């Protein structure tokens, strides 16, 4: 048990303008779950990418089973028995589940003249794997037809099925719901028993304390220290991560919602499997939470309101008028904003700068003579955002694709705040965001509602839902299964409603 499987010594790595890692060390015991924690941009993913051969280290050394290894590329990492679940989804949307899982190591037919793939074995193995992680899907489903969380589960399944010595999981649960998280934890338990080591990155401290054996904390690319998890408490972790006290996880909710701003009546999607007959109302100055399990069609509902999906029937009344929205820009021009759950596909402009990413939706408000962009006022907006959201980047000209995942999320939130919307729809707003930054986002949410704006928040994190919302609507299989006042909400009663039709 105490045998050291992997040792990373004094690893340094720099990118143009950033020292991402500065002499970081890490020791992983065999058959243990080792958590890696730190704020957004602390260098966790970078350290793991160095281990997995995606980045080349500038200096330092890696010892695997006391042997010095020099991992040049991912193929080599895989062959050494290292597997990785990446922070950003790495799926091939046009191919099916089986092919995604076995990509890079297809089973081959043994007795055939030509080297043929053994499709039968691949399907069977996939099916077995899917049932192990509790996913009721056909191995032949295209990844493009899956939800983000299902895709995430497939990636976890893929990493696990490699039979690796070390499985790196970079925020595996950021887009999973309770149900799937539990399946994952069971899986991790079983892996541990088989002697596999797991490096687990997460911003969810409860999770870390629940499943990890040891914790290493990083800050600003440096090594802070390693502890056995039994010695740690939530507050200690936060203190070590952010280097200051954080007394409250949620800000004091002071705003008092009043009056109606949005009324959704009997809204149904054209797709019969999606949301049906949803009604709710949103008050001015309210944070309206929506809870439910994955596949509950919460995102679809919001996308329907935002004009991204076809609506078959129902009414949306906004500021006492019936709202006709055909496409997102109709909604935006009316003062509605949506932060999408799929950051990669619907959020970031990877090759563009932070500046462009923040301003793209609000250019209309910064025009001189209705044509020329007002660089000065735009710059102000951007710098204000970087400061207010404490976005960690060399400059506003840095490309967003070079930021850490959490910082990307902050940039996208800034985009919508810059637009000054009356209704802000946040789909998993704190996904991948560290505790410190989460608190900042919550504070901003509270600020907004106290200015009389309204927020709809979809979240799979129960405590966040309960901690931030005024009221919570719970959905299950496309239907509204109940509305709970936050004051009386508990994890249990949300869960009951969320699984009503299951």
């Amino acid at each position: 048990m105490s045998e050291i499987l992997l040792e990373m010594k004094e690893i340094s790595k720099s990118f143009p303008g950033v020292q991402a890692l500065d002499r970081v060390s890490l020791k992983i015991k065999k058959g243990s779950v080792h958590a890696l924690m730190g704020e957004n941009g602390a260098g966790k993913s970078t350290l793991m990418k160095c281990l997995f051969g995606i980045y080349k280290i500038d200096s330092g050394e890696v010892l695997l089973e006391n042997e010095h290894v020099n991992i040049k590329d991912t193929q080599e990492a895989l062959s050494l028995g290292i597997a990785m679940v990446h922070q950003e989804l790495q799926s091939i949307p046009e191919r099916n589940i089986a092919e995604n899982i076995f990509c890079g190591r297809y089973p081959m037919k043994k007795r055939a003249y030509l080297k043929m793939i053994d499709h039968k074995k691949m399907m069977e193995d996939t099916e077995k794997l899917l049932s192990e992680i509790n996913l009721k899907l056909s191995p032949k489903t295209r990844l493009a037809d899956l939800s983000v969380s299902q895709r995430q589960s497939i990636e976890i399944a893929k990493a696990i099925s490699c039979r690796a010595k070390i499985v790196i999981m970079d925020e595996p649960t950021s887009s999973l719901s309770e149900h799937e998280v539990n399946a994952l934890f069971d899986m991790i338990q079983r892996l541990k028993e088989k002697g596999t080591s797991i490096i687990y990155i997460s911003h969810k401290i409860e999770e870390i304390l629940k499943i990890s054996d040891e914790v290493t904390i990083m800050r600003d690319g440096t090594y802070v220290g390693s502890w056995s998890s039994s010695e740690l408490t939530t507050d200690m972790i936060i203190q070590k991560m952010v280097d200051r006290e954080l007394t409250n996880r949620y800000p004091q909710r002071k705003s008092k919602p009043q009056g109606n701003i949005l009324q959704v009546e009997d809204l149904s999607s054209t797709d019969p499997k999606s949301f049906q007959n949803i009604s709710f109302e949103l008050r001015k100055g309210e944070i309206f939470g929506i809870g439910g399990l994955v596949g509950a069609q919460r995102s679809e509902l919001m996308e329907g309101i935002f004009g991204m999906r076809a609506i078959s029937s129902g009414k949306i009344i906004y500021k006492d008028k019936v709202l006709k929205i055909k496409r997102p820009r109709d909604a935006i021009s009316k003062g509605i904003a949506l932060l999408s759950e799929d950051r990669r596909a619907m959020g970031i402009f990877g090759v563009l700068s932070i500046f462009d990413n923040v301003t793209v939706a609000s250019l209309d408000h910064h025009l001189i003579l209705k044509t020329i962009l007002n660089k000065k006022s735009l710059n102000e907006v951007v710098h204000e955002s970087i400061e207010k959201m404490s976005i960690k980047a060399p400059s506003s000209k840095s490309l967003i694709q070079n930021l850490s995942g959490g910082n990307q999320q902050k940039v996208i939130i800034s985009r919508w705040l810059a637009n000054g919307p009356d209704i802000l729809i946040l789909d998993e707003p704190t996904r991948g965001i560290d505790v410190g930054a989460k608190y900042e986002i919550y504070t901003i949410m509270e600020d907004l509602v106290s200015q009389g704006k309204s927020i709809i928040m979809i979240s799979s994190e129960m405590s966040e839902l309960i901690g931030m919302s005024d009221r919570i609507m719970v959905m299950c299989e496309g239907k509204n299964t109940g509305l709970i006042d936050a004051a009386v909400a508990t994890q249990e009663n949300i869960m009951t409603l969320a699984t009503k039709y299951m």
Partner: protein
Amino acid sequence: MNIEKKRIIHFMSNNAITLLLILLVFYVGMTQAGFLSGPNFNNIMTNVVPRFIIALGVSSCLITKGTDLSAGRMVGLGGVIACTFLQRADYADRFFPGLQQYPLLAVLILVILATAFFGLLNGMVISILKVPPFLATLGMQTIVYGINLVYSGADPIGGLRKDYTSLATGELFSIGGFSFKYLFLIGIILGILFWFLYNKTRYGKYMYAIGGNENAAEVSGVNVTLSKIKIYTVAGIMYGIAGFLLAAKSGGASVNLGLSYELEAIAACTIGGVSTTGGVGKVSGILLGVLVFELLKTSMQFLKIDTSYQFIVQGAVIIIAVALDIRKYLAKK
């Protein structure tokens, strides 16, 4: 009733191109004598086969999100090399006057080696030097053309051996007016081979994976560099074969053989559902795409459409066909 109607519409939009094709054949066949005849079928098929082979080669590049603009020029090089080695002994104006009569297969191999070499270069430039495929293969297009100019001195090469030209004209057997030519056999074999490659082997799966998400393929342990090199080399081989056959079919070759065939091949692939954004494409679709092109051309000639207008019609039909076909992928979310 209503459901029935919906189903029909659904079926129609899913098979827009095939239906268009059938309609075209039906209309021209009814109005123009000779269109629905054995000889015309033979003509069309002789045209289709080399283009299908080129399209197969290009399709792999497209599926990996690449492209290959050097295809046409490689076809030209292949054809010219083949012709220089396969002239009749008694032909006065021979390129290599004293050359002995090599067997066809030996020359084919020589041709393939040449074009595979340039395909290999393409692959290495794209995957190792990371030059964008459009530019890499555009550069290669120019280079291969230059080499062909230097090699052939821009002389047209003719006087081919009978055994060589009969590859395209000779028939294996014939039923009624429909003759089954050697050329068809080659096309069918290569089509099946590619179907097998695309669906049953690692080569194919890697190709789709790279096109679908190169990064994901890389981190899954796919050797992206090697896969791409292989793909471009195989494409080169196909161009060589196509050039060899095309020259046999036209009874000679000059440096302009195959000029801009790549654009037609890419268009045919796209019509046949090979996505320009990578990761998608089937052999049957490619064949369909090539058929659309060739049937359209022949139909316009039979319909006696003025040549200048033929360009307009061809361009318009391509756009319309794809516009209709694309509907099936665009299901509103």
